Every structure is written in structure tokens, then in C-alpha cells.
């Protein structure tokens, strides 16, 4: 009986998110307290369910639910360790971002619509995480695009709409490529579940038709590369910065970009298998692209005058670490990549929350206006510093751990140049983060900001999430070696799932 109950958990978690969305839509804008309750209740329940699933997986239960959508394609949700890594991250950060968003959007309109689509986004992310086969992955991948669009254009002014158009142009283009790729895959090998180490049917098909297999792999990767913001498909990410801070946090840390990176992992590791992907000469191209993106993202970040655009380009560069980890191919590199998936999420969400706080409390968007903000908002600035140092890869924090494993993993595979990329990225990160820290802490304030209302520097709802995620960044770094840390979980995934690498 227990196993059966476990089996239904994935569906229960998915439906929780969807139900929350439905309730929030139904409640409408007026009833604020009820909406807040349902938002938090939904996020909390989902997190609880996901943790329960994690517990179940640890116990070795197989958590799976599947129903046939078409004669040739079934929608299948499987809670394997890899899926749960992403699911736990997105559920946890959803709860935190919800708290933040409730405070951030105080007094602004269309909140029912915002929170409704917000919950749908996370439902889609959960689906992407637990997708058991390429078809399900594609379904939730596209649903994610649709659910995030209204959030990107939430403010509704012309700049937001323009950003929305760019966002759609890229993501739907990517979606079309993924559709063609997935359909071709299904036509070639029929319905195959994601199998760590690659699907045997795909391997056998690749022997028969290497050119077709490469083309389909290119299409699949092209599709997910858009959301993984790989060069040259990253244009939408900075454009989407026009959205409010919780949405940027969602896009960058919780859902969209992660879905892209997760997609790369699923395609390279669980569909083709690294050996086949390498044999088809795709992984070198992918790692080259990732490297280019890392450097390109950081260089463009340097040139940005606005905080959120700089963070956006930083995301473009950081996410490619995950892709690099996958493309490098060794177990250690993959561990590094997967750990970075969580670490980058935690760090980037802290940075965006801080950016949101600065925008919301001080009304500042540009970096050169943040002089002396450390004094006016010590807590936010401290969190920002922790996350920024983390992004730079300063050791005690999470960023260092991922870079350490990526470096070692790449070298184990003989790709020495990856070290160069890592080092270059560290320097570039330092180049665009340290000046900000200097302005925050060491320079006197040049602009007059509204005085503090009461003791706290900003609304509690804006501060607690920031503190939570900053601490998480610290702990993810310090306690990296423990089994429950992201690194520990990533290591378990790789050892259990991909011995062959």
C-alpha cells in the first residue's frame, strides 16, 4: 500500500500547484488575505510532498505515474533522484519567491493573474523535472513557455510587451525545434523512457542512421539551448529583465533557465547517452558553445549599467556551466554541473531579491546609484555580498564547489582548456561584481533615499527570503561534503545513475 501511495505523490504534487493556480485565479484580485493563504498553503504542501518523495526515493521506492495521451505516446512522471534535485530546488524556491512576491507586489494590480500564472509556472517546472520520457518533457517544456509569458509582460507597458515579443520569438522558435526533434525521435525509435546512460534503441538507431541521429540531436539541443540561454540564443534573457523582480528571480533561478539546462542533461545523459553524443561529435561543439557563452555572458555583463541586466547576462554565463559540466562528460564534471544547477539557483535568486529590494525600497535600478547602499540596507547588501562572492567562486560558498568539480571533471576527461574558461570566468565575475560591492560598502551615499520606516530596512517579506537564500548559499558551500547538500545529492545521482561515464 505504501508503494502505491508513493506512486501517486508525483501526480498529487503536480495537481497541488495546478489547483493553487485555479483557486488563485478564481479568487480574483479583491480577496487578498485568502489569496495569500492559498498561495502559501499551496507552496508549502507542494514542498512537503516533494520532500516526502525525496524520502521515498531514498528508501528505494519507485515513484511513477503514467497515463496514455496518444496511442504512441504516454505522459509519464517519474521521481528519480535527478528529477527530485530539480523538483526540490523549484519547490523550495517557489515557496520563498511567493513570500517575496507577496511583499514585493503590495499594492500593485493584477495580482491574482500574477500568482495564478506563477503557480502554473511551477507546476510546469515540476512536470519538466519529473518527465519520464521526451514527450512528457516536451509537453511541460512548452507549458512553461506559456505560463511564463504573462509574467514577463505582467507590467503591461510597451517595454514589457516588446520584451514579451522577444521572449516568445526565441522560446517558441526553440519549442518548434524541440517539437520537430522529439517527433522525429518518436518516429525513429518509438516511445522510450529516459534511461540513464542513454536509450539502447537510440544507440542502435544511431548506428543505422548516424546522420539522422545527429540531426535530431541537434534539433533537440537547439530547442533546449534557447531556454538554457546558450550563445547565440540568449537574447531573450536580458530582454526579459523588464519583468518585476520576483519574475526575474523565477525566470533565472527557479524555472525557465533551469528547465533548459535540465533539458540538456536529459538529452545528453538520458536520451543519447554521453558516449553516443561524443561519438556523433556533438559534445565538443556543445562544450565549445558553453565556453563561448560563459565568456560572452560575463563580458556583456561588464558593460551593463543596470543591475538587473548585469545579473541577467551573468545568468547567461553561469547557466552554461551546467551545460559545460554535461558536455565535459566525466562523472565529476556532471556532479559539478548538477550541483551548480542548485547553487546557481540559490545564488541568483538571492541577487535578484536584493536587486528587487533596492528597486522597491530605494527606487534604484542603475549600479552607479547604489553608492553607500550597504549602510542604508545592511541586511540586503550583506546577502548580496554573500551571493556575489558565491558567483565569483570564492571558496566557502557554493560557486566554488561547482567550479572545483567542473575543473577536476573536465581535466579527468583531458579537456584542460576548461580550467582556462573557469579561471577566466572567475576573473570576469570578479570584474563585474567587486565594483558593485565596493560601491555598496566603501563609497559614501550620493543620492537621498527615503528614510527607514521603523527599525527594519525594508518590508519583512522582502528581507526574510533574502536572508534564507543567502544562508542557503553559505550552507550549500560549507556543508558541501554532507550527503544532504546539493553536492551530496548530485554525487548520489551520478554514482547511482551514470556509472558508465
Amino acid at each position, binding site marked *: 500500500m505504501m508503494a502505491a501511495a508513493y506512486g501517486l505523490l508525483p501526480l498529487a504534487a503536480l495537481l497541488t500547484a495546478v489547483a493553487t493556480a485555479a483557486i488563485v485565479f478564481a479568487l480574483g484580485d479583491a480577496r487578498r488575505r485568502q489569496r495569500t493563504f492559498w498561495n502559501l498553503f499551496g507552496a508549502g504542501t507542494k514542498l512537503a510532498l516533494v520532500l516526502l518523495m525525496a524520502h521515498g526515493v531514498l528508501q528505494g521506492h519507485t515513484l511513477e505515474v503514467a497515463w496514455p495521451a496518444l496511442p504512441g505516446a504516454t505522459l509519464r512522471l517519474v521521481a528519480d533522484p535527478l528529477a527530485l534535485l530539480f523538483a526540490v530546488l523549484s519547490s523550495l524556491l517557489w515557496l520563498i519567491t511567493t513570500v517575496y512576491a507577496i511583499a514585493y507586489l503590495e499594492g500593485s494590480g493584477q495580482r491574482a493573474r500574477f500568482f495564478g500564472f506563477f503557480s502554473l509556472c511551477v507546476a510546469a517546472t515540476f512536470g519538466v523535472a519529473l518527465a519520464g520520457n521526451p514527450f512528457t518533457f516536451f509537453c511541460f517544456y512548452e507549458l512553461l513557455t506559456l505560463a511564463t509569458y504573462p509574467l514577463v509582460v505582467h*507590467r503591461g*507597458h510597451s*517595454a*514589457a510587451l516588446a520584451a514579451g515579443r522577444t521572449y516568445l520569438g526565441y522560446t517558441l522558435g526553440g519549442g518548434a525545434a524541440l517539437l520537430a526533434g522529439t517527433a522525429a525521435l518518436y518516429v525513429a525509435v518509438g516511445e522510450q523512457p529516459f534511461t540513464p546512460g542513454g536509450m539502447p534503441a537510440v544507440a542502435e538507431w544511431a548506428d543505422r542512421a548516424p546522420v539522422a541521429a545527429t540531426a535530431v540531436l541537434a534539433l533537440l539541443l537547439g530547442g533546449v539551448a534557447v531556454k538554457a540561454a546558450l550563445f547565440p540564443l540568449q537574447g531573450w534573457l536580458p530582454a526579459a*529583465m*523588464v*519583468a*518585476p523582480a520576483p519574475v526575474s528571480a523565477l525566470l533565472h533561478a527557479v524555472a525557465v533557465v533551469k528547465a533548459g539546462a535540465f533539458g540538456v542533461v536529459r538529452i545528453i545523459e538520458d536520451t543519447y547517452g554521453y558516449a553516443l553524443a561524443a561519438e556523433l561529435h556533438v559534445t565538443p561543439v556543445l562544450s565549445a558553445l558553453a565556453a563561448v557563452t560563459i565568456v560572452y555572458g560575463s563580458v556583456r555583463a561588464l558593460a551593463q*549599467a*543596470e543591475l*538587473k541586466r548585469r545579473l541577467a547576462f551573468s545568468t547567461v554565463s553561469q547557466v552554461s556551466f551546467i551545460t559545460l559540466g554535461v558536455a565535459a562528460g566525466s562523472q565529476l564534471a556532471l556532479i559539478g554541473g548538477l550541483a551548480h544547477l542548485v547553487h546557481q539557483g540559490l545564488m541568483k535568486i538571492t541577487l535578484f531579491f536584493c536587486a528587487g529590494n533596492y*528597486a522597491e525600497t530605494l*527606487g534604484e*535600478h*542603475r549600479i552607479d546609484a547604489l553608492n553607500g547602499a550597504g549602510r542604508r540596507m545592511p541586511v540586503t547588501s550583506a546577502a548580496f555580498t554573500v551571493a556575489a*562572492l558565491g558567483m565569483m*567562486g*570564492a*571558496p*566557502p560558498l557554493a560557486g*566554488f*564547489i561547482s567550479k*572545483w568539480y567542473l*575543473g*577536476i571533471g573536465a*581535466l*579527468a576527461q583531458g579537456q*584542460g582548456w576548461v*580550467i*582556462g574558461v*573557469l*579561471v577566466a570566468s*572567475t*576573473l570576469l565575475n*570578479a570584474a563585474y561584481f*567587486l565594483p558593485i560591492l565596493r560601491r555598496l*560598502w*566603501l563609497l559614501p551615499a550620493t543620492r537621498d533615499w527615503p528614510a527607514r520606516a521603523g527599525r527594519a530596512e525594508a518590508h519583512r517579506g522582502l528581507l526574510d527570503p533574502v536572508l534564507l537564500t543567502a544562508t542557503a548559499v553559505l550552507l550549500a*558551500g*560549507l*556543508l*558541501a*561534503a*554532507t550527503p544532504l547538500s546539493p553536492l551530496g545529492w548530485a554525487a548520489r545521482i551520478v554514482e547511482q545513475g551514470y556509472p558508465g561515464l
Partner: protein
Amino acid sequence: MSVPEPLLLLPILAPLVAAALLGGRARRLGAGLLAVAPLTGLLALAPGAQALELPWLLLGTRLAPDTLARALLALTAPVAAAACLAAAGGYAGPRRSGLLAALAATVAALMGLLLAADLATLYFAYSAMTLAAYPLVVHARTPEAFRAGRIYLTMALLAEAAVLAAVLLIAAEAGNVALAEAPAAVAGHDRRGLLVGLILVGFAVKAGVVPLHAWLALAHPVAPVPASALLSALLVKAALVGWWRLLPLGEAALPGLGAALVVAGLLSSLYAGLVGVTQRRPKTVLAYSTVSQMGLMTVLTGLALLQPAAAPAAGAALAVFAVHHGLAKGALFLGCGLHGRRRGWYLLPPALALAGAPGTSGVLAKAGLKEVSASVAEAALGPLLFILSALTTLLLARFLALAWRGDGGLDPLPQRLAVLALVALGLVLPWGVGLRLAPAAVAYALQPGVLADALLPVIAGAAVAAGAFALRGRVGMPRVPEGDWIKPALLAGVRLGRAARRGWRAARRASGLSAPRSGSLRRSPGPPPGA
């Protein structure tokens, strides 16, 4: 009595706790604790403290002081305590708690570096120390301070990148290896040449090897006195720790790189000495003296690299030399901070020690160096060492000339106490360490012949100084800007950049690519407010 393992964490945590208290309301308690905190480092010297294993922390942290670490801890504890005492008691400038917090952080990182026994913790402590030192450099918040800070950070981060690459290269082969086995791993590494090169360059910046010493010369004058004491006496030693933990000393003979290191050491010692003499400000002179002394220690490392057999002896000599130099330089810098009329008397003993006057620790250190160089390079370095000692004496004479007279202010007791403590220790501690690590060197140094030999360069130096002093009216001292090559290089760089931009715009206008942009940088179309 064996010290329970967890206490090994104390030296790292104590300063951090003090810093935390400083942030809060208990400022006075924090300052007091900070002065005491570094002394907890001495606990590690207790015979029983073996090693601390924290598998859950970071990537599996291991703390275990070895002989070099024990020696340097013996140096660091008192000097750091003195610096903190001086800062807590004596520093009258603005943002005192900010300075104390930065000091605390730097000391904690330094302790971590010394105690680290695995690769990740070593790199962690090293990069934390680099970042923590930055607020010290820019503490004055003057444009000059920020420029020095920027140069310091740029050079430090570039160096750190090299260190990171090296660390990753080692870790790729051996994982988060214990530092004991690191040299063997490096020796056996298939890219050993590149790896050793990276290690050398990575730590050379911190060690102030010419031409990478520029940041030192710029940082010291702007940093507050306790900070520059810390920088000069302890931080530069971190480079030595880095070299001696990672380089395959005693494992593999690397004649090429070893020789290069020796030459570089000699060169920087010579060059620093010459440039130091021309400086106007006492702290800059001291900075160049540090570069010069570090040059000698680089020579020692080079020698160990040249001949693995000599590595243990070189190590012992290095430890003694480092302790001697640390105490002396700490005393001198803190002395500079004094305002009393008779400040010179406080400065004389450490100066003499540094110059290597007989009876002082300088003789012991120089003796050790001479003995090792003799065994490796068959007396080739003898005359050179002689010249360098003389140059050092000249340099210190120059310093005494500049800094003899304080400006008459009242010196608070803690500051004077700190200087006195260091001076006293300077006389005793090096000999203690020498007896502990290299009894032969001590015996060698106490022979009358050696004492005589030591006196000669001092006298020569003093003579030259007296001559220069006499001629000071007529012969103008050549003007060399602080940080010598860096300032002109930067100016040239800025001019080059501006010229390039003008050329690029002209080219674009010629090719009619785009209408000439309006003068001011057009405000990028950021989102309307309320985004």
C-alpha cells in the same frame, strides 16, 4: 598535555567572534577580545595538537600544523596580537571598528592558511585573506588609497587565478589531497612544468618578487600602521607557505626553475634596495626593505628547488629568517606609528637586527642563509650576500634618518607596549626558533669569525650612509615614483586606450558606419521607472 583537536579551530574562530562582537553593541569587549585572539594561535604549538579532521566542512577540511607552520605561528601570534593591540588602543583615525573587523578577518584567514592541511582549505584561506586585505588597503578612502587598492586587487586576483588553476590541476590528479602528499603529487604530475610555473607566479605576487612587487610599495603608505604591519610582517609570508606546501621541494630537482627563482630573488633584493633608498616616505622605504628581504627568502626557496637534498636545511633557515624578519618589520612599522620625540630609540634595535648587526637575530638569519647557499652553490653567493647586507644597512639608515624624530604627539600606552613587546621578542624569539629548528646554524652564527664577518657589511653600509648624509645638501637624490614601474605603465595604458578610442571613432566615421554619437554617453534605454 595534548590539546583536544577541536581547539585547533580556535585561532580561526576567535578573531571572527571578535569581529562579530565589533559589529554589534559590545564594541569594547570585541576590541579587547581581538587583541587577545591571535595569541590562541600559540595553542597550536603545544606538542599534542596533531590534526583536526572535519569531513563535513567544505570539501573535507583537515587542520594540522607542521614544522614550518609552527614557526610561522610563533611569529604570527605575537605580531598579529601587537598589531591588533595597537589598532584597538592606538588607532585614532575614522571607522575604527571597520579597520578592526578587517584586521580580524585577515588574521583569521592567515591562521586558516597556516593550519590548513588540505588543498581546498589552503586555497580557501589564501583567497579569503586576499579579499580581507583589500578593506585594509583602502581604509583611508582617499583616491590614492582606492588606486592602490585597485592595483592590489587586480594583481592579487590575477595571481589567485594562477593559484586556482594550479590547485585544480593538482586536484584533478589527486582530489582534495592532504598537503603532506601535495608536493609528491605535483612532482608526479604529467603537466609538472606548467603546474610549478603557475604555483611560482601565483604566489610570487604575494611574495613581492620584482616586478610583481608594485602593489606592496603602493599599499603600505596608504594603509593604516597596524594594517601595513600585518601586510609586511605576515601576509607576504603567506606566499612562502604556499610555495613550501605545494612546490615539490625535496621531491624533484627542478634546476631550471630553481635557478630562475634564485636569480629573481637576488634581483628583487638588489633592485628593491636601490629603489628603496631613493624613497621619501619612511613606510615606503620599509616596504622596499620588505621586498628586499623577501627576495632573500625567495632565494632560499630557489635553493631548495635547485637541490632537493638541501630542502630541510633551507626550510629551517627560511623559518628562522621569516621569524626574524617578521618581528623586526612588525616592530619597525608599529614604531612608525608612534609620535613620541624619541621614537628613534624604539626603532634602532629592530633596524640593527634587520641589518644583521652581530648579536642580533639578523646574524642568525644571514648565517643560516649563507650556510645553505654555501652548501648548494659553493660560495658563489658569498660576495652577493655581502653587498645585499650592506645595501640593507644603507636602506635602514635612510629609514632611521627619515623616521628618527616623531612629531611630538602623545603615544597611548598600548601602542608603546605593543612596540616594546615586539622589540623584546625580536631579540629572543628568533634564537629560540633557531635552537629548535637549526641548532647547527645557531652554533655557526655564534662563532667569532662569523660575527666578525657579519659586522663588515654593516660597517660598510654605515659608512656609505654617513657619506650620503654628508653630501645630502649638494647631490640631489634621484626621484623614483612609488611603485616604480606601475605608475608610468598605467599612465601609458590610459593614454593608449584614449588614443585607440579616438582612432576607432575616426575609422567608423570615415567608413560612415554610424552617425557620430552625441558627446555624452547616451543613457541606455532602461525600463521606465517601477520595473
